[in-house]
């Protein structure tokens, strides 16, 4: 009889201790250490969470300044000073794989500082579909600059000047479907052949192209694209898009060592007309989404929403087009 009581008491103890431990550990935050990518990046890099349940994180930088952000989750980046822990709580309302990352360029490979929060539970899941460039049958890595003559613009195309010819522009050129599938150069060539625009000079036709591009983005979306660029892209491509960000020289040196064109390449110069004016928006968006093929350009599809990738795409064209004074 006594033995039974003892066994019973032991089982009760097990249960109580188990419950206590579960309560203690569930209320404890998960500690994520941040180090430059060469020393490990975010550790751990894989976390699990449940829909609707608070995920407590304790973030600590072990070396230099970092930031912690979660893609497709409504939060501001958290700034991490060395050895100063920061605690945050996240609650996800949808299942899925969320990418956490840094926006602070702590080394040339800072874009490798990423991890995943796997959120399970009930909720609406996004139906995945192939990216637009795949749907359109476009080759992302083909040479998009080989088809036309060298582009030499006499002045920066202006959407505001192009607006003066709005009534003469065939409506097809202003549609979303046309915009995503044609490069500015293709659009210029097709507009040049339009009888309704025969009287316009080449410079004025380029203004019309800038106008038609501007019609495809609202001011709010353009501002969002600008913000995304400055936070995530400027470290490599430069604040003014000239491919002269803080790691540009290091990347160029690395590219010179890569004789077979694999590995880190020099960042694209968006101020070079041929890079953007011969690229269809669907190609630019695809490159943001997927990243370069072994070039050091990271994939952003797991971090940005689809809308954000389009906003950023539209913003990039403003390195070639003057949008000041024009409205959508």
């Amino acid at each position, binding site marked *: 009889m*006594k033995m039974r009581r*003892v066994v019973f*008491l*032991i089982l009760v*103890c*097990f249960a109580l*201790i*188990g419950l206590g*431990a579960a309560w203690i*550990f569930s209320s404890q935050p998960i500690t994520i250490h941040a180090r430059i*990518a*060469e*020393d*490990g*990046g975010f550790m*751990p*890099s*894989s976390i699990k969470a449940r829909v609707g349940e608070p995920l407590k994180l304790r973030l600590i930088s072990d070396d230099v300044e970092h930031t912690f952000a979660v893609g497709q989750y409504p939060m501001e980046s958290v700034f991490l000073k060395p050895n100063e822990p920061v605690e945050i709580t996240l609650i996800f309302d949808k299942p899925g*794989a969320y990418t956490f990352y840094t926006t602070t360029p702590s080394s040339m*490979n800072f*874009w*490798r500082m*990423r991890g995943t929060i796997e959120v399970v539970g009930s909720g609406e899941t996004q139906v*995945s*579909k*192939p*990216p637009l460039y*795949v749907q359109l049958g476009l*080759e*992302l*890595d083909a040479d998009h600059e080989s088809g036309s003559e060298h582009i030499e613009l006499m002045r920066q195309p202006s959407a505001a000047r192009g607006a003066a010819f709005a009534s003469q522009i065939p409506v097809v050129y202003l549609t979303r479907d046309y915009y995503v599938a044609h490069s500015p150069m293709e659009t210029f060539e097709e507009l040049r052949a339009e009888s309704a625009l025969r009287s316009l000079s080449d410079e004025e036709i380029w203004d019309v192209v800038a106008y038609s591009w501007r019609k495809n983005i609202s001011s709010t979306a353009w501002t969002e694209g600008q913000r995304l660029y400055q936070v995530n892209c400027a470290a490599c491509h430069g604040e003014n898009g000239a491919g002269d960000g803080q790691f540009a020289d290091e990347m160029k040196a690395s590219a010179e060592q*890569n004789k*077979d064109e*694999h*590995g*880190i*390449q020099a960042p694209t110069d968006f101020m070079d007309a041929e890079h953007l004016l011969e690229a269809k928006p669907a190609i630019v968006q*695809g490159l943001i*989404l*997927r*990243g*370069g*093929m*072994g*070039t*050091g*350009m*990271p*994939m952003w*599809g*797991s971090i940005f929403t689809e809308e954000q990738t389009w906003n950023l795409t539209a913003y990039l064209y403003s390195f070639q087009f003057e949008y000041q004074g024009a409205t959508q």
Partner: protein
Amino acid sequence: MISKTRKLLFFSLIAVLLTTAISACSTQNKTSDLNMAPMSQMPAEVQSAPVTVREAYQFAAANPDVMKNIPCYCGCGDIGHTSNYSCYVSGVDDKGKVTFDNHALGCSICVDITQDAMRLLKEGKTVPEIKAYVDATYSKYGTSNMP
């Protein structure tokens, strides 16, 4: 008898507490339990790469049977890559000497896919299950390099 019972109870409690504490405090190494090629066999540029890239190369070199059955979605099918393995290894000679491909050094998706494969393998997933996960996760960004 009472003394014996108390002793039994006391030691049981200690055992439970120790077990709980040990399991809670232990942190598993990300690459433990995985077959990894030694770092000394890696080219210098891999040895100086970010940790995730180093791990991916070590894993790829040591697990061709897994990696040859996992696709890549970075677009490398256009340059003749036939699986995620091709992003790391361009050839193995008759003596087993591996020639490394530096493609993955600058590739974002390649390494993400390999890190997913490593994690899922540790969780006990089979190669077809890992392939299904990779297809579902990465097909919204590009095209597979596997038929």
